[in-house]
């Protein structure tokens, strides 16, 4: 034995017999896991919106989205929740990293012993709610896979804007649009929020994929006025965007705008197939978004369509109301010329009830669609309202949009807090006046779009909140000043939003050259004969319709502001699209039969 040392050295290990073992011992103590441990899932059911991004990213297909009792689908929530198959999951945690709401996490729980394979299916948050106390691997605030920041939109600066009616928003460049579109997770939560259920994820994906033509095709599938929506839509889709929970929503509206801007003539790209004429004639009263949308798809399906419009141009409030710096006239013209190209006949300067009688209309057509909008302004109901230079916002905007001159003087007060009030104020700024908005409630209560409010402020419009007009003071039959009282907000006994209540004695007077009222509009149904009015069900100024926009008179359909309370273009478009289905069924019968 040459290597004596090598024989004896190993015996030094014997000393460990007397040492305390460093590994786990019996009786078994459960090991405390690390703070970031990736164990079983937990889902904050209330915060989860069922977008399914977790299921999309999981490379093991360990997640499926299922319906759960007690959770109903609603705007911004699919009503589904993830179910994890613990037999497939590898606890990589990519689902946690990708969760747009941050509701999903992994816990420190890792023991499951069971002979029942079904029990490997876990609905996080529903099964084992106690895991909520054991969250360990959670989203990180710094390190994100999702891109939460919107690509900023370029705009004219405030001082430049008030000099003209040039368009304020400049639109995305190609690279910007691709980048913005790439932020989308394709969850389609937005589709349910859009009144028209546009194919949003599809057209966004097409833009991200550099296929703008495909995007345009998806867009025109159920919206013939995307130029309009791309510029001024109220974008209910964006308010529910999954990404908006932790970041900026995808700029869905601007992406639609981008797609439409790429093609000067949509007909070239879409090359629409127009069905053979089917011999049926449809008359449309009102050339607003509702009427035009119905007309467009009816014409595509072979109907003989005529739109009757009282004003010199179609477009409705999007022509006569929305100012040109938001929706330029050439965009409107582009849409209308495409309509006419596919065969929609538009008769302008034709008011039904005046130029053509309703009876005549009934004779000419097999079915009618009413999209007459709300064009009669509410009166303020205060002394001095009939003075010269006390005007209504919709009249003011219409005159300006028609190219007529309106002299508002150099100090204007606008009364109201909605989009119409803001539009009137910003237009008056462009005419060179100093402008103040007087609004009954707080700024945060204003129904106007926050971007619009911000835009007005950038342009130097002053806002006086909690101010209630009391009287318009005149001089020589003309507006000279407005008297208003300040209000405090008191809780609504019925549980609604707080109401303004005048503070006794807190009254002010402001010298002004014009007062512009913008507190709402209603419809003018005077063109309808009595026998029709009797049969039509009209509730609080709105015509009642069924799911296919059919009124209580079977050959009359209706849509847009005259029907729905949302009072925006996309709802009007959706009504028009839906009515096409109704009219087709009514005139041609159910094709499937």
């Amino acid at each position: 034995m040459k290597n004596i040392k090598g024989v004896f050295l190993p015996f030094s290990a014997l000393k460990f017999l007397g040492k305390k073992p460093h590994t786990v011992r019996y009786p078994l103590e459960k090991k405390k896991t690390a703070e970031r441990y990736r164990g079983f899932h937990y889902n904050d059911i209330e915060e989860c919106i069922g977008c399914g991004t977790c299921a999309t990213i999981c490379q093991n297909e360990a997640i499926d989205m299922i319906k759960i009792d007690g959770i109903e689908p609603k705007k911004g929530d699919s009503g589904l929740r993830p179910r994890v198959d613990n037999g497939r999951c590898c606890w990589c945690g990519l689902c946690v990293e990708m969760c747009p709401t941050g509701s999903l996490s992994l816990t420190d729980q890792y023991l499951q012993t069971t002979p029942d394979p079904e029990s490997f299916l876990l609905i996080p948050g529903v099964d084992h709610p106690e895991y909520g106390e054991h969250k360990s691997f959670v989203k990180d605030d710094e390190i994100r896979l999702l891109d939460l920041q919107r690509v900023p939109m370029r705009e004219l600066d405030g001082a430049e804007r008030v000099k003209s009616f040039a368009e304020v928003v400049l639109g995305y460049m190609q690279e910007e649009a691709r980048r913005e579109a790439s932020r989308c997770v394709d969850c389609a939560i937005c589709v349910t929020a859009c009144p028209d259920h546009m194919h949003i994820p599809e057209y966004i994906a097409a833009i991200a994929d550099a296929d703008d033509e495909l995007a345009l095709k998806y867009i025109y599938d159920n919206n013939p006025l995307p130029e309009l929506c791309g510029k001024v839509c109220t974008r209910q889709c964006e308010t529910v965007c999954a990404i908006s929970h932790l970041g900026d929503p995808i700029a869905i509206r601007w992406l639609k705008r981008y797609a439409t801007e790429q093609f000067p003539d949509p007909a070239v790209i879409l090359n629409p197939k127009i069905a053979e004429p089917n011999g049926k004639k449809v008359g449309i009263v009102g050339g607003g978004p509702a009427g035009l949308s119905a007309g467009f798809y009816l014409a595509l399906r072979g109907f003989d369509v005529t739109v009757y419009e009282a004003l010199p141009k179609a477009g409705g409030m999007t022509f006569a109301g929305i100012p040109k710096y938001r929706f330029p006239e050439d965009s409107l013209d582009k849409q209308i010329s495409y309509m006419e190209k596919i065969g929609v006949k538009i008769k302008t300067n034709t008011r039904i009830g005046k130029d053509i009688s309703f009876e005549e209309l009934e004779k000419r057509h097999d079915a009618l669609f009413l999209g007459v909008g709300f064009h009669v302004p509410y009166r303020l109901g205060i002394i001095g309202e009939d003075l010269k230079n006390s005007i209504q916002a919709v009249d003011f905007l219409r005159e300006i949009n028609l190219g007529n001159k309106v002299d508002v003087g150099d100090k204007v007060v606008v009364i109201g807090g909605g989009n119409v009030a803001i539009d009137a104020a910003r237009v008056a700024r462009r005419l060179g006046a100093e402008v103040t908005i007087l609004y009954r409630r707080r700024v945060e209560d204003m129904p106007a779009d926050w971007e619009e409010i911000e835009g007005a402020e950038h342009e130097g419009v002053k806002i006086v909140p909690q101010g209630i007009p009391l009287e318009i003071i005149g001089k020589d039959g003309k507006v000279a000043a407005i008297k208003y009282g300040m209000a405090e907000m008191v809780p609504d006994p019925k549980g609604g939003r707080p109401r303004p209540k005048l503070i006794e004695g807190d009254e002010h007077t402001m010298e002004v050259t014009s007062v512009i009222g913008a507190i709402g509009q209603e419809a003018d149904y005077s063109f309808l004969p009595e026998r029709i009015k009797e049969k039509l069900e009209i509730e609080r100024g709105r015509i009642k319709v069924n799911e296919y926009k059919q009124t209580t008179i079977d050959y009359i359909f209706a849509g847009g502001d005259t029907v729905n309370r949302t009072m925006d273009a996309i709802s009007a478009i959706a009504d028009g699209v839906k009515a096409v289905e109704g009219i087709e069924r009514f005139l041609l019968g159910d094709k499937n039969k």
Partner: protein
Amino acid sequence: MTQVEKETTLYLGPQHPGITGNMMIELKVTGDTVQRAKTHVGYLHRGFEKLMEERLWMQCFPIVCRICVPEPDPNEENLARAIEEIEGREVPERAQYIRVMVLELSRIASYFLWMGGQAGSMGLYTMPQWTVGDRDYILDLFEELTGGRVYHMYIWAGGVRRDLPDGFAGRVRRVLDYLEERLTDYDRLFFQNALFLKRSQGVGVIDKDKAMEWGVVGPPLRGCGIAHDVRKDEPYEVYDKLDFEIITHEGGDIYARAMVRRREIEQSISIIRQVLDKMPGGPVHNPGPNPLKWKLPAGEAYVRTESARGEFGYYVVSDGSLKPRRIHVRGPAYVHGVSLLEKMLVGANIADVSVIMNSLGTCPPEIER
């Protein structure tokens, strides 16, 4: 004596002491001498390379770590670096230091597993008890850093997935100090053990002149006295900012390979300490596009790391789409555990088969992928 000379077939495996995963060796023996050896793999083929062609780029990360159980991290690092190279994405310096720390910790953990396996194959069963226990201290660190003990899914494109937890560096140092101290015990029990010396010196010799030609890499190559180490030859991450020399040992036998690994444990400890001293602050991740819409620009990259078993390479091809066109993994285990092993077993004693197999760092899950 015709009975003794008769050739018999012996099937060894697919289970082996000290080897992660399964493979089988068909031995033709006369007496207790191996005449020919044929490896049979196929127990562990999961088709990862093909699977990845149907996965988004981000989804590949939870897959690649599974290619090698004892040492998943070089896979993650390779894939991340190949992608970054194709994309031209910068990795923050702090993340590069963290990556080196992770790679070296995983090297130590891997060597500890090898030590247990190597000793176990010689019948020295105290060793696996010790090494598995001590390796767990490193796994504790991994659990704390990444949330997973074995599969870390921590290194990803653009950096790493989380910053170090508070006080983590101190805990790393404590574990390093402990392991360094333990090396003396391991020397006494194993590296200086007469039995180990007897069974390793002059056994399983790789011909130095043939080693390069056969594609031998890592400790088996350095155990032939050839200084080849990717960390030095083609430094990646921040290896060029760290002070270390390539470790070699002459002889080409099991002992030489063991000594290379033994000294490299100390070397890794030293590298990690330097990393902790030099690690700058700053971000640990340079974000890329939304993983669901992430198209890697068309292009290809071949990257390599020095893993515990030797040079580990990834060839990644992108056709500019959402998914890889091809990802090919070049691991050392295929060369060592299949073609080299079959050559080396000729003439070996049956009792040495497992010992040789262990000494080459054979890893069936990596062979088959």
